[in-house]
Structures are given as structure tokens and as C-alpha cells.
């Protein structure tokens, strides 16, 4: 039996990340207590270093499949990996001061963060059930732990517990589904599964198995009704972790969904399309409606991210053109949405952390009058919030546009209905986003005048980078649209 073919160039990002994990772990042992903050620098460097081969590979342009098609490095995978790494890097920036200033374990924190990132990069390339499962657990388990990182805070514990339990339960359901899929299709590789799908065999059992498989990722993207963990976990977890959860971890779920649906189960669209239709509609509506009543900004963002997840699910519900071929633009729509969502949500959390450093609160009321004493934070926060709402000229509008475009392209009654649901939801969403923005701008500064909010450099960078990006995307969406297009060509 020949030795398996290893394309080390293609695996370089993962290898670099693994190296970074080890380096961070070892360095943590070597550093003095007061030097431990440097582990954040190492982690950051690790993220950026892993980006280098990705750029090289993207420039190189060839698809590289390994291990019998179980692991593929194509443009789609590269785009997603880049997204994960950048999101990871921003999370490191967000975490640096937060973790250093609190009473937290630093080296271990970054170890876990990098491990989760490793899981995500693997997920981007994974094209078989086992690898997907492993990647999912690799990106999940460290985050279960990170959510409870504030060990002495009961809320953090609770956050960790809920996240863990719901995560494990849904992965159990997913595994059950995968086992049936394997049993029916006879292979774990998605391309082989697609062949089985094409035969049309499997009956309802296969439909249900597909559904069970998707549940694991519906949990990850916190789609209603698998979302219950999200608000509680987001609220209780350390804020940088929440940012990471709501962006990177969620994207991880979507990447898996994209691979599974488009590569594996595509032909079985009568099974997954209605399910995802329901999940999309329910996520948007429920997420937005509950968000209306939130008093805590993190919690509100949690519900908002549930709703945003619903928007990203919309293109799935119209993905099949009806003749078995993938609708051009639907896949792209989800990717573009993911990219833009990552930018704006990370930005929002960055500002949130910056504000919380000053006010020691994430209550929405504590934002009153922010504009008067920290105009830059207020302006950037408003930008991110309105971008999430999809108001031009901020990037979010383009994300919404591509989703609507996919829906209208389909043009069927179900599709248009979903489009109208989405349109109405985008209006509801504006209400709570604008309410926060309104508080910041319209209310007078607090009685003590608010003072000034000092923003450390790392955090400042974590705010500035998304701000610039979000404006750039909004004005010239081609920037990200091209990435989406690129990713689609890979598939």
C-alpha cells in the first residue's frame, strides 16, 4: 500500500498553527508571570504567519485534493481559512488587554484559542464526515472551556455549562445522523456520498439522517430552534470569547453546512431545503423579536447574531435551481454574508469591550450619552450597528443585497415569501440597533460627564480595522464580492 500523498504546502497553515500552539504553550511555561502577556503577541504572530501560505496558495491557484478527496485545499477553503485567521487575529487583539488585566490564565487561553482556530482551518478543507466531525469538536471543545474562563464568575460557569451541554447533545444527534448516512452511502467522503445521493436511494431514513447531521451545525450557527444556548453563553462568557463565538465559531458551522449541503447532500434538496427554509425564517423572526426586548447589549447582539444567522441560511433555502444544479449566487451569497458579518460583528464587540473597560457594564442603558464623551467609540459603534442593520453605505447592505438577490433569482413563491420575511425582519432589526445608537447619540452624557475612555492600542486596532473595512465594503463591495466569487469558483 503506497504511503498517502502529503502536500505539505497545502497543509502549511495548519502546520504553522500547530507549531504556534506548541510555542505558546511552552512559552507560557518559560515566561515570568508579568511577561505572560507576550503569549498574546505570539498567538497573533501565529495567526498572521499562517496567513502567509494561504496568500501564496491563493496566488498559485491550483486546487489540491488529498487523502482520497477527504481533505481539499481550494479557493473556497482558502478564503474561509483566511477569514478564520483574520478573525482569530482580531480576537487576539480584543483579548490582549482583557485577559492580561483580569485574573486569567494567559498562555492556556491562547493555546485554546489557537486550537479552535486549527479546528476551523481544518473544517474549511474537510470533505468527509469524520474530518468534519473532528474539526467540529476541535473548534468546539476549546471554546466550551474558554466560555468558562472567568472561573470565579458564576455566570461564566453557567455559560460554559450550557454551551457545553447543548453542544455535546447536538453533536450526538449529528453523529447519529452521520452514522446512518455512512451506513446508507457506504462512505464518509462527501464526493462519494454525493454519488449515493444521485441514485435517489435511501428513502425517508436518509432524509432524516441528513437532517440529524445538519442539526449539529444548526446548533453551531445558533439557528432557531437550536439557538437556546447562544444568548446565555454569550452573556456569561468573557466578551472576547463571545466575539469569537459569534463570529469564528458560527462561521465554522456555516463552512461545514456549505460543504455538507453543496458537496455532499446537494441532490437531496427536497430534504434539506424545507428544513433550512424553516430554520432561516424562524431564526430571523425569533432572533429579532426577542432582541427587541433585551437590556443587555451582549445579549442583544446574541439575538441579533441569531437573526443574522437566519439571513445567512436564506440562500440555502433557494440553493437548488430546481434542475439539480446549484443556483449561481446562492453559495456566494452565504460566503459574502459571512465575510461581511465577521467584520461588522467583530467591530461591534471590539467597541463593546472598549466601552466596558470604561463603564464596567454591558447594559444598554450604560451607553447613554456615549457620543458626548467618547465620540469616536460612539461613531464606530453606530457604524457597526447600522451595518448589521444593513443600512448603506455601510458594508452590511451588500450582504443583505446578495441574499435578497439569491431569493429573487429563485422567484418561486416559497422563495419570495422568505424574501419578504427577510425584508420585514431587516426592518424589525433596525429598531433595536437604532435604539442603541439612539441612546449613545441622543441622550446627554452621564452626570459625571463620562470622562474620557482610554482605548489601548491593540483594541484600537481591532476597532479601526473593521471600521475601515466596513466603509470600504459599503462603498465598493466588489472588494468582498470578488472573494465570494473566488470561493464559488473553487467549488
Amino acid at each position: 500500500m503506497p504511503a498517502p500523498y502529503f502536500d505539505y504546502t497545502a497543509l502549511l497553515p495548519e502546520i504553522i498553527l500547530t507549531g504556534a500552539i506548541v510555542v505558546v504553550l511552552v512559552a507560557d511555561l518559560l515566561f515570568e508571570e508579568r511577561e505572560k502577556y507576550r503569549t498574546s503577541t505570539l498567538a497573533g504572530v501565529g495567526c498572521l504567519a499562517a496567513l502567509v501560505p494561504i496568500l501564496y496558495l491563493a496566488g498559485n491557484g491550483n486546487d489540491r485534493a488529498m487523502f482520497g478527496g477527504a481533505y481539499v485545499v481550494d479557493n473556497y477553503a482558502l478564503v474561509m481559512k483566511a477569514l478564520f485567521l483574520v478573525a482569530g487575529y482580531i480576537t487576539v487583539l480584543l483579548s490582549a488587554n482583557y485577559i492580561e488585566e483580569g485574573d486569567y490564565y494567559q498562555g492556556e487561553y491562547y493555546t485554546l484559542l489557537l486550537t479552535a482556530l486549527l479546528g476551523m482551518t481544518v473544517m474549511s478543507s474537510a470533505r468527509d464526515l469524520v474530518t468534519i466531525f473532528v474539526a467540529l469538536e476541535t473548534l468546539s471543545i476549546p471554546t466550551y472551556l474558554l466560555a468558562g474562563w472567568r472561573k470565579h464568575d458564576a455566570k461564566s460557569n453557567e455559560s460554559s455549562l450550557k454551551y457545553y451541554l447543548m453542544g455535546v447533545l447536538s453533536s450526538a444527534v449529528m453523529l447519529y445522523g452521520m452514522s446512518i448516512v455512512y451506513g446508507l452511502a457506504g462512505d464518509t467522503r462527501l464526493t462519494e456520498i454525493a454519488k449515493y445521493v444521485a441514485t435517489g436511494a435511501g428513502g425517508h431514513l436518509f432524509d432524516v439522517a441528513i437532517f440529524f447531521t445538519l442539526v449539529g451545525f444548526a446548533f453551531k450557527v445558533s439557528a432557531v430552534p437550536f439557538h437556546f444556548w447562544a444568548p446565555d453563553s454569550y452573556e456569561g462568557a468573557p466578551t472576547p470569547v463571545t466575539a469569537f463565538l459569534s463570529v469564528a465559531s458560527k462561521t465554522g458551522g456555516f463552512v461545514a453546512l456549505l460543504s455538507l449541503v453543496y458537496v455532499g447532500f446537494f441532490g437531496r434538496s427536497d430534504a434539506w431545503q424545507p428544513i433550512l427554509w424553516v430554520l432561516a425564517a424562524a431564526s430571523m423572526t425569533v432572533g429579532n423579536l426577542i432582541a427587541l426586548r433585551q437590556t443587555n447589549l451582549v445579549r442583544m447582539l446574541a439575538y441579533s447574531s441569531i437573526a443574522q444567522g437566519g439571513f445567512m441560511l436564506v440562500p440555502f433555502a433557494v440553493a437548488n435551481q430546481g434542475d439539480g444544479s446549484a443556483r449561481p449566487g446562492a453559495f456566494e451569497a452565504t460566503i459574502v454574508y459571512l465575510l461581511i458579518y465577521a467584520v461588522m460583528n467583530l467591530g461591534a464587540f471590539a467597541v463593546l469591550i472598549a466601552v466596558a473597560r470604561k463603564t464596567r457594564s454591558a447594559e444598554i442603558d450604560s451607553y447613554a450619552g456615549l457620543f458626548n464623551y467618547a465620540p469616536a467609540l460612539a461613531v464606530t459603534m453606530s457604524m457597526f450597528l447600522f451595518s448589521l442593520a444593513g443600512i448603506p453605505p455601510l458594508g452590511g447592505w451588500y450582504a443583505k443585497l446578495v441574499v435578497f438577490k439569491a431569493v429573487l433569482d429563485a422567484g418561486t413563491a416559497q422563495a419570495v415569501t422568505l424574501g419578504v420575511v427577510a425584508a420585514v425582519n431587516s426592518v424589525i432589526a433596525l429598531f433595536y440597533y437604532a435604539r442603541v445608537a439612539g441612546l449613545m447619540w441622543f441622550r446627554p452624557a452621564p452626570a459625571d460627564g463620562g470622562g474620557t475612555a482610554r482605548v489601548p492600542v491593540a483594541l484600537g486596532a481591532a476597532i479601526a480595522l473593521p471600521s475601515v473595512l466596513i466603509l470600504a465594503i459599503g462603498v465598493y463591495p466588489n472588494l468582498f464580492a470578488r472573494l465570494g466569487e473566488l470561493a464559488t469558483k473553487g467549488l
Partner: protein
Amino acid sequence: MAEKAWLIPLLPALSFFVILFFGKKMPKGGSESGIIAVGTSFVLAVIVAAQWIKDERIVDQHLTWWSNGKAHITIGQHVDGLTAMMFLVVTFVSLMVHIYSTGYMHGDVRFTYFFAALSLFTAAMLFMVMADNLLQLMIGWELVGLCSFMLIGHWFEEKNNSSAALKAFFTTKFGDIGLMLGTITLFFAAGQTFHIETINKLALEHGALSHGLVLTAAVLLFLGVMGKSAQVPLHIWLPDAMAGPTPVSALIHAATMVVAGVYLVARVYGVFWSGFSIGNGGLNWMAFIAGLTMVLTAALAFVQDDIKRVLAYSTVSQLGYMVAALSVGAWTAGVFHLFTHAFFKALLFLGSGSVIHAVHSNNMSEMGGLKKYMPQTYWTFVIGTLALAGIFPLAGFWSKDEILLGATKNGYPYIFVLGLVGAFMTACYMGRAVILTFHGEYRGHGHPHESPRSMTVPLLLLAVPSVLIGLINAPGVLKFAHWVRFEVPGVEFEPPEHKFAVPLAAFSFAVAVAGLAVAYWVFYLKTAPNKGAFARSPLRTVKHVLVEKYYLDWLFVTVVVGFIKGPLARAAYWVNQNVIDGVVNAVGVGAKLVGRFTYDVIDQKGVDGIVNGIGVSASETGGVLRLVQSGRVQQYALMLFAAVGLLAAALILFT
């Protein structure tokens, strides 16, 4: 010169801007600018008129103002006899009023502004008169309405005055709906043009336009006429309009603006003629309204104490005559009455202004015996009264006689009868006014004195035409009918003309004299405290006759006059104040109430309520959904598995 007739309105318009921007810095507060401009316009008007008389050449020119595809909206001038006459009337009366006002308004807080408004008014009126198309006419029409509003509300500090201004504007604006819609109807009927000559032509050509269309247009336009020329029941604004300074009343609410409606009918006569089938005689809507107006408002004049209101009701009544004339086909008579009325009514108003200026009150109960204090005013006022009453050979006699003549000859006997009744009443209430104002004892306060020359000179200047002007259409002369006639080039049409009939003239003259006599009887003899004075009066013989023939006395005093003065007039006045005016006020109040209902109930609670309701219910739904998020992880898990089970079941059942 006729080609340059547009200069006539332009000059006062320029004057308006000059006064507006520089008036306060001028030595005479801007009045000189107005007088010069209007004076020059008057001279130009005279030239235009002279040229018209000489050449009788109609000038009809226009420029494209703006265009919409092939339809061109134009602005232009149409100069014919009617235009020339109106130019003359407007500029002359306006000039008189300008001069008069320098005295009357002396020391007023808004002296300059007053003259600016006068100039603007003159310009707008002339612009309207000059119009060769309905749109332009309408624009001028509305602009004079604006000036009327400004001038009625001149002393806006008092709520009554501003309310009167609002009422005037609002009521005429209501009529303007008709004008606007009528204009639009004719615009499309005539193939997308407002050109009056074309419209008249089409209206008179048999079969060019359907009768229904022309009738619709005529009715609509007449609604505008009713508003502007104060025909019953839209007359209620005019007496209130007397809240403005008296010169304004003379110029706008007697001599010029209010005749705009009459002018409109005369100008677009083709439409009215065909629309109301005037040539057929009998009853038509226009004649009916005009007949009512003549008599009813004349009766109202009896019970007024305010001298200006007497004149106001008189004006309404006389406008009724003019419209009646046109409605019976007596085009020349109507226009001629417009012409003569302008002079003597302006004279009367200015005279009353002079009185008011002297006694600082409008009420005749605070006047009396002014004859000896202000003789010039007295005599000119008497001339005006006689002219208005239709005493031979003063101006009013000729024009009124022609109206009655037309009514009989063209088959409108009821207009004739109403006209006679009206003539009697006119003479009677004017007699009353003269007596109450100038005769008897002075009942006011202070020391009345004759007005300054700036005021008396215009009175004298107006008195001259009031006496003489009627003669230009006297039998044998008949120049007016020739100079001012309705003609549409290309159409064989002329309103009927009739020969002066002596018996009829004599009869109407007699009626007028009777009216004056009764007034003398009732208001002088019966009420004068000094019987002795009466005993020595030259009218003793008359008194004797009347006293001796007691039944006649009874008949006149108790039955006729008593009825008119008492129940009829009072009832009419009551109806006027409470019903017609009440309706107008109720419309105002009602609109307010409807508005409030619309806003408070429909808008705020209904439409807005739905909107807010959606918001609230969304938020409430969110609140309910929050309950599901109980915080207990195993409930979450239960939801998760339940969802898994149910969705799987659904998947099996529905696919």
C-alpha cells in the same frame, strides 16, 4: 399704443416693488410712486381708449409663457372696447382713491404698505382685464383677491378685521374652484388652449361643442362669478369686507374688483350665452341668482346702521343688476351699468369715508346733521345717491333703464319686476342713508369738519362722471353701445340691442322718485324731532297730500315700507346672519371639527395607532418568546430534541 397696452398694468406693478423696497425712505411714504404710476397708466388708458374709438382695431397678441409638448400656455393682451373701458375705469377710480388716501390714511402706521398694496391691486386688476386667455385672467383674478385680503385685514390688530379678511378670501376662493374647473374644462374643450377668443368662437358656433360641456363650463365659471361678484348666497363676505379702510372699499369692494365677475361673464359671454341658452328667454340659473341678489340684498340695506354696510349691500344689489343684465342678454346694459356704477359707487364710498373721517365712526346713529359741517361731502354724496337711485339724467338712470328694457324685451319679465322692486328699494335706502347721515341733529361726539382737499377733490372729480357719463349712451348719442360691444371675429353674433323706450324710462324714473319720497317720508318726517322744520320745508305740499290721503300713508308706511323695513328686512337679515353666514361660519367650524376628528381619531388613533400597534405587538411577541428562554439548560435540551423529533416527523410526513 394699443400694442403697448401691457405697460398699463406694468407701471403699477413696478410701483409696487418701488414702494415695497424704497417706500419708507420716500418723502411721502411711497404714495407719490403709486400716484405717478397709476396716473401715467390712466393717461395711457385714455390714449388706448381714444385709439380704440378711432380705429376700432382689436389687438390680440401673446407670448408663449411655457409649453407642455404642443400645448402652449401663453401670456398676452387682448385690447378691445371692453378692455379699454375697464382700463379707464380702473385707472381712474384707482387714481382717485390714491389721491384720496393720501388724506384719509394720513398718519396710519402702515401708510407705505397701504400704498404698496393699492399699487399691486391696480396692477393685478389691469393684468386681469388685459388677459387674452382664461389662465391669465384667473391669475389676475386671484391676485386681486390677495390684495383684497391684505387690505381688508389692513388693521389686523383687531381679530374682527383679520377674520373678515379671511372670510373674504375663503369665500371667494371657494368660488374660484368653479373658475378653476371651468377654465380647465374650456381648456380641453377648446383643444388645449385658454385663448378666450377661440373659446367664445367655439361656444357660439353651432355644434362645435356639446351643449352639456358648455353648460358645465358656464355653471362652473358662474360659481367663480358668484364668489367674486358676491351673488347670493356667496355675498356674505362683502359686507364684512367693509372692515378695511374706506378707500379700499371704494376701489376694491365697490368699483373694480367685485365687478371682476361681471367682467368675466362679459368677456367669455359666448360660453354663458350658449351654456345658459340666454337667447331663449325664460328662466336660467344666472338670472335666478341675480334676481334674488338684487332684491334680497337691497332689503338688507334697510336695517344697517353702519353707513358702509348700507353701501356694501347696495353694491351687492347693483352687482345683481349687472349680472341680471348679462343673464337676460342685455350685454351692453350690463357692461354699461358696470361702467356707471363704478363712478357713483366709488363716489359714495369716498363720501362715506369722508364722513367717517370726520366723525370717527361708521354708525349712522352717531351722525346726523352733517350737511352743514361738510357741504362738499354732502352735495357730492347726494349726487351719488341720485345717480344710484336712477334719477334722470344722472348716470344710473341710463344704465338701469337699459337693464329693465332688456329684461322686458328679451323675455325675462320677472327680472323686470324684481328690477323695479329693487330700484324702489335702492332709492329708498339711499334716501334713508342720506337723511340719517346729513340731516337732523348731530348725534355723535367731537366736532366734525370738512375733509382736506386731498379727499374732497376726488369727490368732486368723481361727481362729474356720476352726473354726465350716462349721457354717452343716451338716445341719439348711443356711443357706448357702439364703442363697447361684444364681438368675436369670425362669428356672426351680436347680443340683442333695443331702442330707448320713453314710457318704460318714465316708469322706472317714477319708481325711483317714489322710493326717495318714501324715504323722506319715513325717515325724515316721521322721525325728525323738529316737526317745525318740516312744516316750513318746501315739501309741505307733499306732506299735505300724504297726510290727507291717510290710506295712502297707511298703505305706504305700514304695508309697503313697514313690511320691507320691518319683518321682511329683518327676517332677511336674520336669515342672512344666521343661515347663510351661519353656514359659512359653520363650514369653518365644521371643517375645524372634521379636521380635529380626522387628526385625533383617524390619524393619531387609527392610522398611526396601527403603525404603533404593530410596533408594540412585535415587542410583545418578543416578550412572550423570551419566556421560552427560561435559563434552564435542560429545558433548552428538551426544545432541541422536541424540535429534532417534530421536524423529522414533518420531513417524513410532508416530503
